């Protein structure tokens, strides 16, 4: 297969070298710009660099985490006024004032971001919009501090940054640093988790992603960058009034990210440069610029939701070989799963859960043993998936206990299940379609990471070590399920059956003690179901306890050590496959008599 060869060469050459080329090219152009002797162009480029300092942080919020923060001009305003007022009215050193602007920006970033934990898309967008309106009104009316409509002078920096060129180089250096840091964050468990929150939130939680903590960190970071950008912006403007911070700026920042493409760093960078420079090429366009941005936004949203990054992604247009078959390599299992001596059962006792007046589960007992495959079957609405959700913390029972050995797991609290040793797959695969297959599998290893966000941003040794180990392990998991040739491919290009196996690989990443599979055979061909069955049995023989929810009765009876039949939220029967098949009530329940 030429396809595998292709994937191998791609891995053999350090990918980062190729990927870094456009950034170095841009940096070279930026450094050469002052040599052109056009001072006006240097000013425009300075502005673009400052905008990028803000947009690079916002990109993590909007492009990666998918939070629609459309009022970020508010943070630019806060940073600008903080720096200007501190220098002008309190005589603080300009660099200290910039640092203060970063702190104020970070705090405001958290204030703006906090509602994102509870509010959905439009509501959150509206709160950021409201925040932007309020900040402008305060800047206008608080004349004693901000100077109101008259304004306040921006901070002037000390030599060598007091000239246009010196200031430009400072901004370029900062912009380059921001690019580097956000790239580091993007290619880490932080970046992958953010994208997972955006596109597959439930799966992210099942993998142990702590959404609240992660989002707050990102809002903190992007707020700090926005505050710094504000301080620099005030210096560039040399005099600021509330008029300088129109909502049009917010629109520019936001649209730059969407045009650039979500989940990309290069795309939004190019789009920021483009949108900043565009009105300069044609003076008549200035009045129409926001109109054009809006038109562009509409076109992008409706026609190319992936933005520039998608258009430039030639690799994803190359055809994949057809007629692919998934062939797991069971012999690789010991390399991935190895357990200590712990032989604790997962026990459910008296679980009862109702949705309103409907009793979904009614006093259920269940024991999962390490090394066994336990089948869970029953007619529609008998409570199979609800049982699985109760174990995983996605549904909160009104009463009952879930224990592993002697440890009682808190009911609910889904993001803590991964650390407790419970992994799962979903009825319809929850996959990040825009991320590569291997990135999707690496999301499963989120809880293995220890490096902090700072270590990641600065790519310190611990982060690099962890990242390499995680990638290795993910590759092993992909080899195990027979999908290593597709590791670098965007996941949304895979067939449905392949996604099922990607989900299993992802769930195996943190060495779960119990693996819960929700209808893994749905949509698979007969031969794929057979291979799935072999894989499931092999996983259990490694010491994992497997819970298999399935409609395919033949698969259940072929691979399970024990089977529990649910009906109307209660155990109808439990025993070996042979006992269940002979059980008259089961057949009756299935045939609805």
């Amino acid at each position, binding site marked *: 297969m030429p396809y595998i060869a292709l994937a191998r060469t791609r891995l053999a050459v350090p990918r980062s070298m190729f990927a870094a080329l456009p950034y170095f090219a841009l940096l070279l152009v930026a450094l050469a710009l002052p040599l052109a002797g056009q001072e006006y162009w240097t000013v425009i480029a300075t502005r673009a660099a400052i905008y990028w300092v803000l947009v690079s942080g916002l990109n993590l919020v909007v492009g990666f985490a998918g939070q629609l923060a459309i009022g970020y001009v508010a943070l630019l305003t806060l940073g600008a006024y903080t720096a200007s007022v501190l220098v002008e009215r309190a005589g603080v050193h300009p660099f200290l004032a910039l640092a203060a602007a970063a702190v104020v920006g970070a705090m405001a970033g958290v204030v703006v971001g906090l509602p994102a934990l509870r509010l959905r898309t439009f509501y959150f967008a509206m709160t950021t919009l409201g925040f932007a309106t309020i900040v402008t009104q305060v800047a206008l009316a608080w004349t004693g501090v901000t100077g109101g409509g008259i304004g306040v002078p921006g901070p002037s920096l000390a030599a060598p940054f007091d000239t246009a060129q010196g200031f430009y180089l400072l901004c370029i250096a900062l912009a380059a640093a921001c690019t580097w840091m956000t790239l580091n964050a993007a290619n880490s468990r932080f970046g992958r988790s953010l994208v997972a929150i955006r596109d597959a939130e439930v799966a992210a939680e099942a993998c142990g992603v702590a959404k609240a903590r992660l989002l707050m960190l990102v809002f903190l970071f992007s707020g700090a960058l926005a505050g710094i950008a504000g301080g620099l912006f005030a210096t560039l403007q040399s005099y600021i009034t509330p008029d300088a911070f129109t909502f049009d700026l917010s629109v520019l920042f936001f649209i730059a990210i969407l045009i650039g493409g979500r989940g990309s760093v290069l795309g939004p960078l190019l789009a920021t440069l483009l949108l900043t420079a565009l009105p300069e090429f044609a003076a008549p366009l200035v009045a129409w610029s926001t109109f054009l941005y809006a038109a562009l936004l509409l076109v992008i949203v409706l026609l190319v939701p992936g933005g520039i990054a998608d258009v430039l992604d030639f690799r994803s247009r190359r055809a994949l070989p057809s007629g692919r078959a998934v062939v797991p390599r069971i012999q690789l299992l010991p390399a991935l799963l190895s357990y200590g001596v712990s032989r604790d059962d997962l026990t459910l006792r008296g679980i009862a859960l109702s949705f309103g007046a409907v009793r979904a589960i009614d006093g259920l007992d269940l024991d999962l043993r390490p090394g066994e495959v336990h089948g869970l079957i029953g007619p529609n609405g008998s409570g199979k998936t609800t049982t699985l959700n109760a174990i995983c913390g996605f549904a909160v029972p009104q009463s009952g206990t879930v224990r592993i050995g002697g440890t009682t797991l808190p009911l609910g609290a889904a993001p803590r299940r991964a650390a407790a040793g419970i992994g799962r797959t979903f009825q319809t695969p929850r996959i990040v379609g825009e991320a590569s297959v291997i990135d999707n599998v690496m999301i499963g290893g989120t809880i293995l990471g220890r490096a902090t966000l700072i270590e990641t941003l600065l790519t310190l040794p611990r982060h690099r070590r962890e990242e390499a180990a995680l990638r290795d392990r993910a590759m092993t998991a992909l080899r195990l399920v027979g999908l290593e040739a597709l590791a670098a491919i965007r996941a949304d290009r895979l067939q449905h059956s392949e996604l099922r196996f990607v989900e299993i690989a992802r769930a195996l990443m943190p060495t779960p003690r119990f693996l819960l599979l929700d209808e893994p055979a749905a949509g698979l061909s007969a031969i794929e179901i057979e291979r799935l069955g072999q894989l499931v049995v092999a996983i259990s023989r490694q010491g994992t306890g497997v819970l298999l929810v399935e409609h*395919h*009765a*033949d698969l259940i009876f072929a691979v399970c050590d024990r089977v529990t039949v649910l009906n109307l939220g209660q155990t109808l029967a439990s025993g070996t496959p042979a006992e269940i098949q002979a059980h008259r009530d089961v057949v009756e329940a299935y*045939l*609805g008599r």
Partner: protein
Amino acid sequence: MAADALLHVEALDAGYGKIGVLHRVDLIVRPAEIVALLGPNGAGKTTLLRALSGLLPWTAGDATFAGSSLRGADPRACARAGLVHVVEGHRVFTQLSVTDNLALAAYDLPRGERSARIEDALQVFPEIAAKHTEKGGALSGGQQQMLAVAQGLVRRPRLLLLDEPSAGLSPVLVDRVLLVLARLRDAGTAVLLVEQLVEKSLAVADRVYALAQGRIVLNAPAQAPGLAARLERAYLGVAA
């Protein structure tokens, strides 16, 4: 065989996004017959009904109703042609009165004809006729199911697609609804019935199809000898 068919489905494929649910489904319903569509969970029964009534686009194959193709027809066009789908889960409008629920089913009929149609539909179910001013939300589950079926009857369908009318009903009410189906058939209406209750369906149906994993695995007269055993095998995933 197909010449006298009211509904003729040929090699139909349909699904949600990437997930194919139905694979080359062939099925025929003739005028004035009750056809039961049985099968285990997740076999694709609801998906098939949705594909036929225009609620779900299909990916391959064809289906004709009364001689014209259903390709690209939306639910409104289907209903106008006389193919009416009563969806699962007795989803009536809880904030509207029983009469208004029925009036909406007659939305694009002439105003004069509307009240007559509503009267007719209510006559079939005296239980809800007595409550015709009450809100849909005030009805019991069984009454809501009757209202849902009555909504379908307002259209005077040539073919009625019924998705699990027995769900959540007491045995007495199930018999009541199935009796209505038998009367409809005698009056010339064809019915395609999706059910979990196998024995009760067989008692009222003329023919039966079984669907498993998106494929038709059984097609037989409802009174065929040994049908129960064949169905049992079909449910466990083995072609009967």
